[in-house]
């Protein structure tokens, strides 16, 4: 709801300002947001005079401090800012905006749990309601990372337990979560509402039981593709006996049997339940009973979709068709974990309503899928196994004109077999589903022609992930590399932000990506490229690249070094079984002190110290993490250790986020910041070092910051490596010390 109180300018009623000033005092930062607990939709901070200020006596009139007024206004406005990017930008404007933004942010998103410490995050943001944390890199899903690498939820939950007692939502991806962590979570947050665990592990049904029993306000418990150990605790029985607030209960990945009666009773006493995704222990007969209890469901995961083995088929089979027909709101269907295709016709009544259908665990043929899919006119998301063959995909293309997302998974994840889907299926989809935005396609063979066709027919593509399972496999018809196909994708799909390549690829493919992939953020490479040039093209050409994961490709140290200018802008870089040496990685660590450079050893590689099995590097404000397992070594910059980054104030956090918008035009020398303290004149440091950097910050320009030009003469060690962040920290020191010189008006560029 929009507030009916307009933010006021500074020349209005002094009473209003006075009262607000007591609210906005410096000491008041940590007051619980009681206004927002009671009025979710009206988050303004008491604009009316006298309301909510808590003090009955009117203090003596004092002229309002102008910044304070600005902060009041700002706070009211910033509540409405929800986009993370906008908030980050707002926090850079000036210190006042930084502070107010931090007070008004309620959703905390941390894309790499090691980029910032729990302490730093909770100090900066005091009023968080929702936390999203991502841990391990994606390649860990494919056993490319030894177990116990890290990404522990424990330090986060302990810090949040103290800092955010009113936390409502936790969303974790690829984190290690223990039962103890879940117990602490359940105990610490009385208003806890949503727990979403995606690709997590380390916990079991006993942890779930604690959450179920103690989180009385729980609305959402979603376990997606997570590994849940069977502690032989029936966690479903632990939900309180009273009516629940449950809106979403997703546990299709939990492979432990549950007590069906307990589940049925739970569903019966959860009137708000809209999303229910069952695990494979639930038979179709049991599904029937649940559907009858919950016809209001919008999202249903059907469990096994086959009869239980115990049932002696004595009773008459229930009327599955009518059960489905009764679910008039059902738009998203999944499950079918052990499907007996004879039961498929039961879902006919709802096909025409479906916007999302997940058959990715259902081994069904083209003939079996056709009658279903031919009714799914509204389908937008379709996940399926390649068992439906090209023919099945053609049927999809014929009907699903609204399709936005398609994922085709292989039943047999091997390389040297014939394979049921191919370029034929891809071509058909490209012709039929013109609105396609996201595709993940596993196949054994492919042609450039089909990929090029898709690039032209589906201009809205944002995500293109093609996995030709045979490594280095060329175009099946022409025998050429797949360069042209992927080249066409980056060239023609102007909205593409995520790309995964495969098949036989030369450096040319990467030249295309570097040339045309200007907004690509995520790139996955495996068994591709000829030389360092491949990686160089990408690092030099893709300014928006944030996540780069590479395996088994011939890229070496030289290529790695060519990305120095960009690594601080990235969330992470993963390179495994490439041609990197320890020295090369050490150089990166040396040049970029705010990068954590992890070298991870493969289990079977005993001695090779010089060769790097896996490089995983990411920017971080915290330096090397403390929970490093023995198979990981973190390369550190030997020179810069003492004193170089001595200002660990939150100015550095600003510099951190500033990097993207600041351009360093010419940098050759780096200074040891320790000596910056001994400045005599405006530009010299102990007579030894002077820093010259031309900095442009478009945001700063708008609020009147100054441009600086500081000549660098020499570096303490006579070396010439780049450290952008150290420079920026120096600059902020100089701003503080009022050594500002306004010179020139060269433009800033990214």
């Amino acid at each position, binding site marked *: 709801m929009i507030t009916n109180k307009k933010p006021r300018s500074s020349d209005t009623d002094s009473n209003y300002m006075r009262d607000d000033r007591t609210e906005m005092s410096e000491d008041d930062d940590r007051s619980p947001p009681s206004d927002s607990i009671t009025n979710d939709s009206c988050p303004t901070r008491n604009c009316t005079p006298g309301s909510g200020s808590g003090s009955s006596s009117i203090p003596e009139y004092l002229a309002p401090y102008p910044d304070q007024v600005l902060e009041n206004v700002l706070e009211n406005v910033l509540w409405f800012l929800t986009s993370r990017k906008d908030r980050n930008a707002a926090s850079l404007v000036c210190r006042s905006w930084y502070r107010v933004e931090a007070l008004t942010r309620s959703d905390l998103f941390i894309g790499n749990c090691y980029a910032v410490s729990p302490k730093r995050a909770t100090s900066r943001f005091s009023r968080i309601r929702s936390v999203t944390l991502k841990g391990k890199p994606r*390649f860990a899903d*494919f*056993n*490319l990372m030894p177990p116990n690498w890290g990404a522990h939820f424990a330090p986060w939950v302990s810090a949040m337990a103290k800092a955010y007692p009113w936390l409502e939502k936790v969303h974790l991806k690829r984190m290690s979560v223990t039962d103890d962590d879940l117990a602490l979570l359940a105990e610490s947050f009385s208003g806890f509402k949503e727990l979403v665990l995606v690709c997590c592990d380390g916990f079991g049904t006993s942890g779930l039981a604690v959450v179920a029993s103690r989180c009385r306000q729980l609305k959402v418990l979603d376990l997606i*593709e997570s590994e849940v150990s069977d502690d032989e605790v029936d966690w479903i029985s632990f939900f309180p006996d009273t009516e629940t607030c449950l809106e979403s209960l997703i546990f299709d990945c939990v492979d432990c049997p549950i007590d069906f009666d307990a589940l049925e009773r739970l569903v019966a006493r959860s009137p708000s339940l809209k999303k229910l995704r069952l695990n494979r222990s639930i038979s179709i007969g049991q599904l029937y009973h649940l559907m009858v209890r919950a016809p209001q469901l919008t999202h249903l995961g059907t469990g096994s979709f086959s009869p239980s083995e115990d049932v002696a088929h004595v009773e008459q089979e229930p009327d599955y068709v009518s059960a489905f027909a009764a679910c008039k709101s059902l738009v998203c269907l999944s499950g079918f974990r052990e499907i007996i295709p004879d039961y498929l016709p039961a879902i006919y009544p709802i096909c025409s309503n479906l916007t999302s259908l997940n058959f*990715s*665990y259902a*081994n069904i043929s083209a003939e079996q899928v056709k009658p279903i899919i031919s009714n799914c006119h509204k389908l937008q998301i379709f996940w399926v196994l390649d068992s439906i063959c090209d023919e099945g995909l053609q049927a999809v293309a014929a009907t699903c004109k609204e399709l936005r997302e398609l994922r085709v*998974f*292989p*039943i*047999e*994840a*091997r*390389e*040297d077999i014939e394979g049921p889907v191919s370029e034929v299926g891809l071509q058909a989809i490209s012709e039929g589903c013109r609105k396609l935005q996201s595709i993940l396609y*596993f196949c054994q063979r492919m042609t450039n022609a089909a990929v090029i066709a898709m690039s032209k027919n589906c201009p809205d593509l944002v995500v293109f992930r093609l*996995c030709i*399972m045979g*490594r*280095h496999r060329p175009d099946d018809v022409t025998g050429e590399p797949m360069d042209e196909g992927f080249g066409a994708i980056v060239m023609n799909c102007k909205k593409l932000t995520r790309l995964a390549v495969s098949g036989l690829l030369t450096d040319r493919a990467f030249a295309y990506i570097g040339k045309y992939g200007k907004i690509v953020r995520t790139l*996955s490479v*495996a*068994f591709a490229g000829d030389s360092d040039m491949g990686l160089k093209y990408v690092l*030099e050409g893709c300014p928006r690249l944030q996540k780069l994961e590479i395996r088994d490709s011939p890229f*070496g*140290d030289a290529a790695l*070094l*060519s990305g*120095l*200018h960009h690594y601080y802008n990235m969330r992470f870089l993963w390179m495994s*079984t490439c*041609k990197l*040496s320890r*020295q090369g990685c050490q*150089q990166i660590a040396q040049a970029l002190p705010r990068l954590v450079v992890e070298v991870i050893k493969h289990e*079977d*590689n005993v001695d090779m110290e*010089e*060769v790097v*099995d896996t490089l995983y590097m990411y920017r971080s404000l915290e330096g090397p993490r403390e929970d490093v397992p023995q198979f990981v070594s973190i390369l550190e910059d030997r020179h810069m250790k003492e004193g170089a980054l001595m200002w660990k104030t939150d100015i550095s956090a600003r510099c951190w986020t500033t990097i993207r918008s600041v351009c*360093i*035009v*010419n*940098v*050759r020398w780096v200074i040891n910041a320790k000596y910056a303290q001994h400045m005599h004149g*405006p530009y010299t440091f102990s007579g030894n070092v002077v820093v*010259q*950097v*031309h900095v442009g910050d478009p945001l700063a320009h708008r609020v009147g910051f100054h441009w600086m*030009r500081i*000549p*660098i*003469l020499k570096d303490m060690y006579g*070396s*010439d*490596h*780049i450290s952008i962040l150290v420079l920026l920290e120096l600059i902020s020191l100089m701003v503080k010390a009022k050594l500002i*010189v306004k*010179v020139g008006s060269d433009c800033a560029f990214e």
Partner: protein
Amino acid sequence: MERSMAYESDLNLKATELRLGLPGSDEPEKPSTTPSVRSNKRASPETSEESWSKSSSSVSNVENCERDGTPPAKAQVVGWPPIRSYRKNYFQEKKNDQVDGAGMYVKVSVDGAPFLRKIDLKVYKSYPELLKALEDMFKLTIGEYSEKEGCNGSEFAPTYEDKDGDWMLVGDVPWDMFICSCKRLRIMKGSEARGFGC
């Protein structure tokens, strides 16, 4: 402001011209294709090549074959294709259940007993363990197992049907081979058992 102007003229800006580039490179417009080696800091490219190629064997010989264009050996590579293990194993399990003789659960019949049992062969690591389990399950003595002589010392002879459909005496082949080829077990009794040399 004036200060800076004056200062600028004093400085030899050309000499202190700042450019963006790789460490050690003089031409910063384009990062050089091979970074100039600061000899005391880094091993030469040759040695790093060598040591790299040594380690590649742990994956497969793929990378070494790449350049001469020979199709790489299709050895099983870790994490490829990029499917989560849950999904990869999901259909593997199904397959295993359907394939006969792959080991794991096998039916056990005992002559004279009215119904059969099933045991999971994977649970046992050796013949003595298996035989002990069978003895416990059916309350009979099969006797001691010795590598040379097979089962000895009772009227019961444990036999199994292998992949080829032949009935064999338990204990003749190495355990691992037995596990892979055993389809079902039958504990013979009496005269038939004697035919096996027990």
